[in-house]
């Protein structure tokens, strides 16, 4: 299968010369098992160009089926959806998967994204067949020839990580998440930064440890681990409650799970290409010095990674 990055940025799109190389579009990754329909993970602004490219294939005539896995519904992960061209072509089928809510149906959340006065085209008027699938963590299902599993992450309002296996290859998309050490992020709004490195209530510490164990188990042996590394360690210490990790956190999960390639992802909006180069180089140096067996790369728009026997 092929994994292609269409948007690698976190929080908000950042156009400009300083982001030309890594790209300024928000989160969107295309996973394409050989000869099969695309599985799209997250629908940030990057999905606009992906959708246009899909219209060159069967989707242009309304004969396409796409699966969209949403990590969570924060803007930077769904804001491209109203600009996804296959939605506007009758005959296409789009299946949207995201975590089940405790308070409302998924379809209502997505419908409110485009209702008046926020967007001129309501969900109900899109021409494609759109079906929403609510997931609970631990769910596993098949999409064409691909097998998908998911587990929850430590992020405000809760995000999901996904694993996709196909063609003898495997990948995990793990964004957005805070490390599992300083604060439990769920539905409550946390206004002041909790102490980093402090002592946690044992019940919370146990919940975080179990969440992390679930992630490490899901990542076991994958060819490619895409990980939220929005923060530097200093940025994390100032904002542990924002729900993002550092490259150090990603390295630790990568080591324990025995993965093959670690991909830095969900770059901070303020990060210039030069700063991102530096973060990549420092992370690679760290892993080389420690003798880690995995490779470290950083996601950029247009990057394509081939996994398994799709050569």
């Amino acid at each position, binding site marked *: 299968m092929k994994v292609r990055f269409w948007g690698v940025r976190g*929080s*908000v*799109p*950042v*156009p*400009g*010369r300083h*982001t*030309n190389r890594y*790209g*300024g*579009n928000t989160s969107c990754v295309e996973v394409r098992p050989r000869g099969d329909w695309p599985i799209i993970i997250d629908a940030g*602004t990057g999905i*606009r160009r992906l959708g246009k490219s899909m219209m060159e294939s069967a989707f242009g005539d309304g004969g396409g089926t796409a699966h969209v896995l949403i990590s969570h*519904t*924060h*803007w930077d992960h*769904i*804001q*491209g959806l*109203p*600009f996804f061209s296959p939605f506007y072509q009758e005959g296409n089928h789009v299946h949207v998967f995201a975590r089940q*809510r405790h308070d409302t149906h998924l379809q209502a*959340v997505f419908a*409110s*994204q485009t209702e*008046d*006065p*926020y*967007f*001129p085209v309501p969900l109900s008027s899109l021409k494609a067949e759109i079906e929403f699938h609510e997931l609970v963590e631990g769910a596993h299902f098949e999409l064409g020839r691909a097998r998908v599993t998911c587990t929850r992450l430590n992020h*405000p*309002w809760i995000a999901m990580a996904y694993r996709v296996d196909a063609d003898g290859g495997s990948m995990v998309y793990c964004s957005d998440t805070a490390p599992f050490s300083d604060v439990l992020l769920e*539905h409550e*709004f946390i*206004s002041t930064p909790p102490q980093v490195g402090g002592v946690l209530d044992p019940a919370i510490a146990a919940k975080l440890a179990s969440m992390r164990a679930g992630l490490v188990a899901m990542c076991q042996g994958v060819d490619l681990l895409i990980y939220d590394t929005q923060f530097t360690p200093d940025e994390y210490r100032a904002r542990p409650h*924002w*729900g993002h990790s550092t490259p150090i956190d990603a390295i630790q999960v990568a080591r324990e799970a025995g993965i093959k390639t670690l991909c830095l992802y969900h770059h901070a*909006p303020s990060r210039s290409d030069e700063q991102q180069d530096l973060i990549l180089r420092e992370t690679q140096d760290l892993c080389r010095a420690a003798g880690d067996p995995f490779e470290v790369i950083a996601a950029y728009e247009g990057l394509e990674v081939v996994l398994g026997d799709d050569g």
Partner: protein
Amino acid sequence: MRLHVWGVRGSIPAPGPETNRYGGNTSCVAIQTAAGELIIIDMGTGLLGLGNSLLPGDFGKGKGHATILLSHAHWDHIQGLGFFVPVFIPGNHFTLFGHAKSSSMLEGILEGQMNPNFSPLYTLRNLGATFDVRAVIPGEPFEASGVRITGRPNPHGSTTALAFRVEEGDRSFVYASDVGYEDGGPSPEMLELYRGASVLLHDCTYTPEHQEKRRNRGFSSYVDAADAATRAAVGHLVMFHYDQDYADADVDALRDACRAELDARGGAGIGLTAAAEGLELEI
């Protein structure tokens, strides 16, 4: 007054080398009055750059205040608010004027984008800055930031978008983005709002060919912009809100075509600028 342009794009931010010159950020401009007051018009992603530029001054110390004029609440006009650094600094204050049946409904619309399904901010009340939100009464002038402002709704697809006229002394600036006129162009009320403006910043999303195919979306072509500018006898026209698929070269062509259109309509004396991120223009 001085105009400062921070975001020129319509619909959705369009990052990439092909938009480097005009910029890929969504709609946001600022007016600095002669008295030094700040008026922000629309809150697309261009608002991020404006926010960072304000931090060395009063807004960095929690002593800033500004007027925000909101044309309408489509995402590309509000999506910068949660990333506008001055709103996180307690003490800053914003008075926001927009289009709704009541002030509380307008506040509810802003709350809608902050709700926890979509944003980790949950509510406007978690921002450090304070907001005074007011619904504009169409056609009724009000005073804000020491200048006279009038808002009137233009047709915009299935909805409307406010155009604003800002007047200070003998200078006037009109912001008219996101407008798809009915046949015949601007209504008499709108032409009155635009009349004789020192600078008219106008929706210029499309070529006439593209506009014809997407008429229901409620945007202008350069022909509409040139028509409005000549009929209202404005001093200078600023093109704005380019389609997300237009590369810099496309916008260059749009500008040249708009110049020719102005000349053909007897507007040879009207100055023309295609808005680009970073543009500053003395009004």
